Structures are given as structure tokens and as C-alpha cells.
């Protein structure tokens, strides 16, 4: 009975993997197939590839480097507002790109707050355009994400280990070497990989803050091939190169990391006996708060005046976006859970890598591929909203999987044999063992996916009409028609709604029934 239930789940998991890979990798195929001539990769493309990889690599390294002290400080300090701060850490990751860029420039730009301050002191204004700007923005987006992933790692260190360390008289340095470093070795490669993959497809951020065509990424070349040159096979070739790099990185880094054992303790502070470094921790947390908080504050401050005068169509678009986000989240959860289930039995680096490189799928390529496939059968424009929900769900799977997989593996290792010996049915096992066991990471993952789906312009930019416009599309259209203030209002609304969705899921996961 139990065995049959398990094999059904394995089948479901395999099916979910096929769906995800078909939508991310598979949608490249139709582009190749209707193209007239094979796409060419020319010399200049290699320079583009080099820049793309270098900036993604540096972004990943820096994000991880800054996230370690931040997560460490958050893991060993208990203070008023800590829970709220953890929640706020989700925000930068979920802001739509252009909103965040304007927020970052409001602080760091040539006429931003910092430059104004420097000007008052008689110093020249900042000029962040170039690699500095690209890295600044990428760290802004990803530092919070990595920090939350690392916090899960810290929470997994058992309280007994800390007690033992205290008895042995460990100082902070011994603590780092013997207790924390082994955990970091397990968690860092995966976290770094996610950032690398996200930044690999950076396009608007890299170009806008990169200062010129030196900062061209593969994603821009794909956009150009599809939109301006209508060279489908070249777009497909570039997309394949991008995914090839992603897969190589995934296999390398996933192979490096050891499977982590996670306890169900995200956000809980283990009792610690090492009390040194208080001021260091305060400094780190304060600096992170300023770095991440000020641009968000700028976004809300800029948009607030226009919030009250937003037109009815904006509110309709907002409702549409929330609906899509919720649908995408539900689909994504089902897919990710099924995949996490099959992958949690052993080490399937290739399979996990195939799913993770979905992070580098270009929604423009997916949209075009779907268009070619669906058009003979149905009108893709009539299905704009469901298609957007499905594609957003699939694009969210890598995030959700990365967060869910360790938790599912832990629950299975811990409770799997007991459940098998009790002969629990699949439904009972799911409801009473698995779901409660992964509640915290699941809440975080679903919050991320909901917010990401909310803010993603994605394929709606291809299939959307004014009747099906989502909030990000509406905002892009307002900006394109000089209405920058209304667009700022829509941006602030988007930020607030995304954050609320994130907060509901994340806090829901951490809510404790027992108390």
C-alpha cells in the first residue's frame, strides 16, 4: 500500500520535472524548427558571453560574501523587530526591476541622496555607472535572498552543538571553524548558484547601470534577435549557450555542496553561549538595513502621492496580478513538492541542475516558443492570463525547489521509515507528516514565488492586451507614455501588494499552532 503510494508520487515527480524542462528548455525547440537558416554565433557574442558570466560570477561572490556576516549576526542576536526585519529582507528581491533601479539611483545616483550629501560637503557626485552599478544592484537584489537561505543553515545547527562548543570554551573563531564553517560549506554553493543563475539573465539592470554597450548581456542579444532582427534560430542558439553555461555551473556547484541536513527551525534563535562581537553584529545589521531599506523607502516615497489618484484600470490590473500570482503559487507548489519528493531520495545533480537552469530561461523565448506551438490549436491571446500563471509557476519552481528540497529530504530521512512501518496512506502522510515538517521553508518559498509572479512582466508583455494587462505591464505602459508619476504610484502599489503576498505566506509558514 505504502509502496504503491510512493511509486505513484515518484511518477508524479518525474512528470513535474518533464513539465518544467519542457517549458523552459523545450520551448527553444520550435524556434529552431521554424527558422530558415541555422543561427550564427559571431565573435562579438563571445565578448558578450564573457561579460555576462563575469558579472554574474562577481555578483554571486559578493552577495554570498556580504550575506555570511549578516546571516551570522541575525542568527545569534535576538532583538526587538527581528521578525519584522526578516520579513523585510524579502522585499528587495520582489521589486520589479525598473522600480528597484530608480530606487537605487535615488540613493546612489548622480543626483541621489548620497551625491547630494557629498555635494553639501563640497565633494563631487558619485558615478556608479559601470560594473560598480551592476554589482551594486545585483547585491541589492540577492543579498536578502542569500541571507534567508543561510539563516536556514544556521537554524539547522543543533542547540547541543552550541552547548558543547560553550563547554569546550570555544571563542568566535573556533566556533566559525568547527561549527559554522561545515554548515556554510554545505549551503553556500547552492545559494551562490541561485544568484549566479539569476544574474546570468540580467538585462535591463546590467545595461541601464552598466553605462553602455560594454555591459551587454546574452539576454539583450536574445531580445534583439527576437524583437528587432526576427532571427529565431540565432535567439535559440543564444538561449542554448546561456543554458549551457547555467548547467555547467549548476553541476559544478551542486557537486561541490554536500547535502545539508536541515531542521525545522527557520527564524528560531538557538540559545547561544558565545556572546562576543555584539557591536560588530549591530554594525552589520545596521549597515544592511540602510543599504536595503533606503532604496525601498525612496520607491514608496516617490509613489505615495500618486497612490491616491490611481485610475480604475490600475486597480483592475492589480486584481488581475494578484489572481495570477495566487494561481501561479498554487501550481508552483504542487510542481516543486512533487519534484522535491523524487529528488530527495538520492543525489540527482543532473536532474536538479536541469530544473535549476529554468532560472535562466528567458520569458521572451518561452513566450515565442509557446506561441509557435499553440497558435495552430488555440488563440494564445485568449489564454494570456492562464498562460502567464503557468509560465510564472514554472519559472518559480527553481526557487521553491532550492528551498523545499533540503526540508523534504530531512523529513523523509527522519520520518520515512516510521511512516512506512505504520503503513500510513499517502494523504495522511502528506497532511500530518510532510506538510507540517516543511511548513517554514514552504511559507518562505511560496511567498517568494507569489511576489515574483506578481512583479514579473514575463510573457504577458507578449500576449497581453489592454484588456488583460497586469500591474507591471500597466506600469510599463504608463512610463512609456510620459506618465512617470502615475507609473511611480503603480510601482509603489506593486511593491506594497507583492510584499503583502510575501508576508502572508512567509508569516503563515512561521505561525505556530501550538502556541
Amino acid at each position, binding site marked *: 500500500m505504502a509502496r504503491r503510494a510512493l511509486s505513484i508520487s515518484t511518477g508524479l515527480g518525474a512528470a513535474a520535472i518533464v513539465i518544467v524542462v519542457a517549458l523552459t528548455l523545450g520551448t527553444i525547440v520550435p524556434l529552431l524548427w521554424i527558422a530558415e537558416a541555422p543561427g550564427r554565433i559571431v565573435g562579438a557574442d563571445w565578448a558578450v558571453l564573457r561579460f555576462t558570466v563575469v558579472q554574474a560570477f562577481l555578483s554571486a561572490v559578493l552577495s554570498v560574501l556580504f550575506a555570511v556576516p549578516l546571516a551570522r549576526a541575525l542568527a545569534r542576536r535576538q532583538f526587538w523587530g527581528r521578525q519584522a526585519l526578516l520579513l523585510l529582507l524579502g522585499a528587495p528581491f520582489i521589486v520589479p526591476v525598473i522600480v528597484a533601479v*530608480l530606487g537605487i*539611483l535615488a540613493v546612489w545616483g548622480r543626483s541621489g541622496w548620497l551625491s547630494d550629501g557629498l555635494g553639501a560637503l563640497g565633494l563631487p557626485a558619485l558615478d556608479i*555607472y559601470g560594473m560598480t552599478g551592476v554589482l551594486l544592484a545585483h547585491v541589492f537584489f540577492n543579498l536578502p535572498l542569500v541571507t534567508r537561505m543561510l539563516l536556514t543553515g544556521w537554524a539547522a545547527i543543533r542547540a547541543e552543538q552550541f552547548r558543547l562548543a560553550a563547554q569546550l570554551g570555544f571563542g568566535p573563531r573556533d566556533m566559525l571553524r568547527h561549527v559554522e564553517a561545515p554548515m556554510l560549506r554545505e549551503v553556500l554553493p547552492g545559494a551562490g548558484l541561485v544568484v549566479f543563475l539569476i544574474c546570468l539573465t540580467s538585462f535591463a539592470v546590467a545595461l*541601464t547601470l*552598466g*553605462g553602455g554597450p560594454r555591459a551587454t548581456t546574452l539576454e539583450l542579444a536574445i*531580445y534583439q534577435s527576437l*524583437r*528587432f532582427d526576427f532571427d529565431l534560430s540565432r535567439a535559440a542558439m543564444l538561449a542554448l549557450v546561456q543554458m549551457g553555461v547555467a548547467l555547467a555551473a549548476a553541476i559544478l556547484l551542486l557537486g561541490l555542496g554536500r547535502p545539508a541536513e536541515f531542521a525545522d527551525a527557520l527564524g528560531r534563535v538557538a540559545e547561544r553561549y558565545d556572546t562576543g562581537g555584539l557591536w560588530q553584529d549591530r554594525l552589520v545589521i545596521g549597515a544592511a538595513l540602510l543599504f536595503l531599506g533606503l532604496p525601498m523607502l525612496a520607491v514608496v516615497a516617490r509613489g505615495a502621492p500618486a497612490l491616491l489618484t490611481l485610475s480604475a484600470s490600475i486597480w483592475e490590473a492589480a486584481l488581475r496580478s494578484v489572481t495570477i500570482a495566487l494561481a501561479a503559487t498554487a501550481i508552483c507548489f504542487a510542481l516543486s513538492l512533487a519534484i522535491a519528493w523524487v529528488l530527495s531520495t538520492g543525489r540527482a545533480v543532473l536532474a536538479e541542475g536541469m530544473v535549476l537552469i529554468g532560472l535562466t530561461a528567458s520569458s521572451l523565448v518561452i513566450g515565442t516558443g509557446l506561441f509557435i506551438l499553440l497558435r495552430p490549436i488555440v488563440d494564445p491571446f485568449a489564454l494570456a492570463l492562464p498562460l502567464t500563471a503557468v509560465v510564472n509557476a514554472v519559472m518559480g519552481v527553481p526557487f521553491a525547489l532550492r528551498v523545499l528540497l533540503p526540508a523534504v529530504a530531512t523529513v523523509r530521512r527522519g520520518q520515512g521509515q516510521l511512516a512506512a512501518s505504520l503503513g500510513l496512506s499517502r494523504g495522511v502522510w502528506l497532511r500530518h507528516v510532510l506538510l507540517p515538517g516543511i511548513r517554514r521553508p514552504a511559507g518562505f518559498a511560496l511567498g517568494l514565488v507569489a511576489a515574483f509572479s506578481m512583479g514579473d512582466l514575463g510573457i504577458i508583455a507578449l500576449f497581453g492586451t489592454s484588456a488583460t494587462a497586469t500591474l507591471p505591464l500597466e506600469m510599463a505602459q504608463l512610463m512609456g507614455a510620459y506618465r512617470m508619476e502615475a507609473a511611480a504610484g503603480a510601482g509603489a502599489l506593486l511593491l506594497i501588494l507583492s510584499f503583502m503576498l510575501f508576508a502572508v505566506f512567509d508569516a503563515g509558514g512561521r505561525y505556530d499552532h501550538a502556541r
Partner: protein
Amino acid sequence: MKTVSLTLLATTALIGATHAQSRGELVVYTYDSFTSDWGPGPVVEEAFEAVCDCDLTFVGAGDGAALLSRVQLEGARSDADVVLGLDTNLTARATATGLFADKPAGLPTPDLPIAWTDPIFTPFDWGYFAFVHEADLADVPTSLKALGESDLSIIVQDPRSSTPGLGLVMWVDAAYGDEAAAVWAALADNVVTVTPGWSEAYGLFLEGEADMVLSYTTSPAYHLIAEDDPSKSAAAFDEGHYMQVEVAGILKGSDQPDLAAEFIQFMATDGFQGAIPTTNWMYPAFTPAGGLPDGFETLITPETALLLPADEAEARRAAAIETWRAALSQ
């Protein structure tokens, strides 16, 4: 089933109430901002439906370049009858697809600074690219070369992903030809950054990130008329200004060729053209009887209009973009 037929009935009744619809539906593909609430779409739809005895449907499909990609993807099976919103950088490629039919005969001559001879496409609006700045900017340059020699900061768009970005590249190419590389080399240190599209560039400019931004000579009119803000100006350049002409064309595969031809003819009348200046913020291609709205007389009017013929623009595009890329990558 019952619900479906009820909904159908209600919809039919609703449509029947507003349009007689006896001649069916005319589908026009256009770019998103044309169909938005604040664009020309709603005004044009109402005005045309009042005279055509038909149902006019605008379908927004991204920007101008996306519009052509969409038509190419759909090929001869496209639902569209008319495509509205391509510009002169795209018409050569559009013509080469063989999907477009000749324009209807007997159209009036458009009011453009250049002669219009295209047998397929009909212009509906146009504008000049220009660098826009705060009106109180000191020492406004009077040419691309002077701009390159100045210390002013500018934001431009990427020609590989944006229409104005491509416009500037063609501007430098049309004005300087073989000297284009040197002009770009001089401009390189003025460029703060390059954005993927017009909105990001204009947004950054409004936030104070640069002294000037590449936009249109008509941009100050938006601030003046819609926001009552006279603080923006466009710089007039001696080399002349490159133009953007936006056009519409009929698809060969249209199942409504008569209605499509009527729509193109309607496009040249006041019912369409009157909406253009204060919704699309461009010059109407056929000046309405009432002239241009108040405020447009404050705009600069370049003495020389530059525009490469469509096939020449297409032939020179790749090399011109490469010149740009090489100079700005130094």
C-alpha cells in the same frame, strides 16, 4: 452550457446595441500605448465606428518592433487586417515579408517635411528625434559635434532594443556618414548610460541623472500641455534632425479588404488626426483643419529634416550599430 449561451446572448445584445456591426469586424494590430486609455485608440475607435458600420478592434502587441515580429510569426494566417505603428526603420523589412498589400488609391498627400513615395505604407504621424533638457540649462549645444565636445551628460537608448536608440544611430550616420565613428567617439564620454528602452532613459532624466536625454522635439509639449510645466526644452541641432515616421499598412491576407482601405482613408481625416498631437505626442501626418493644439507653436522646428529611404536605412543599419557599439565600448 446554459451560462455560455446566456453570456453569448448578452454579449451579442451589447454589441448590437452599440454597433450595427452589419459589415463585421476590422482587426487592427498596433503597439500597446496606442490602445491604452490615454492613447489615441479609444478616440479613433469611436470616431471610425460612427461612420464605418462595423466593429473596430485594436489589438495591442508590445512595441513597434514586436508588432512586426508578431505579424511575421503569424504569417499569412494572421487575424489582423491592418497593422498600425511600424516606423520607417521597419518598413523595408515589413515590405520584404511580402505580407502587405498596396495602399489604397486616392489618398491625400501627407504633410511631411520630406516627400512620401512608399507604395505600401501610409504615414499617420511623425516626429523629430532631439535631445531634451531643462529649459534653464546653460550653453545648450547647437550640434551633435558641439555636444560631443561639451561636458554635458546625456542618456541614450540602445539601438538594438529601442526605436529612439536606433533613430540616433541613423541620425549620426545620415549626418556624418564616414565620420560617424569619430562623432560617436567624441560623444562616448558624455554618455552616462544606455538604457534598453525610451521609458527608462526618460525616467532617469526626470530624476536628474543627466543633463539631456534622447527623445523627441515634441516631448516638451507633453509637459507644457498635460502638466502645465514649461520647464523642458529640446535642443535644435545644425546638422538637422533625424525623423521618425509612423505608418500603417493593409495585410494581403485580410478578410476585410474594403473596410481596411476605408480605415486607411479615414486615417488621413480629422477624426483620426485630431487625436494624435495630445495623445501620441507626435505631429499628425495630415494636419487637421483646426491646426495644431496650443502649445505646439512653442516647439523648435528643425531647418533640415533627415531621413534615409527605407531600403537604405535597412542596408546601413547593422554597420551603423556596429560603429556605435565599437565607439561606446572603448
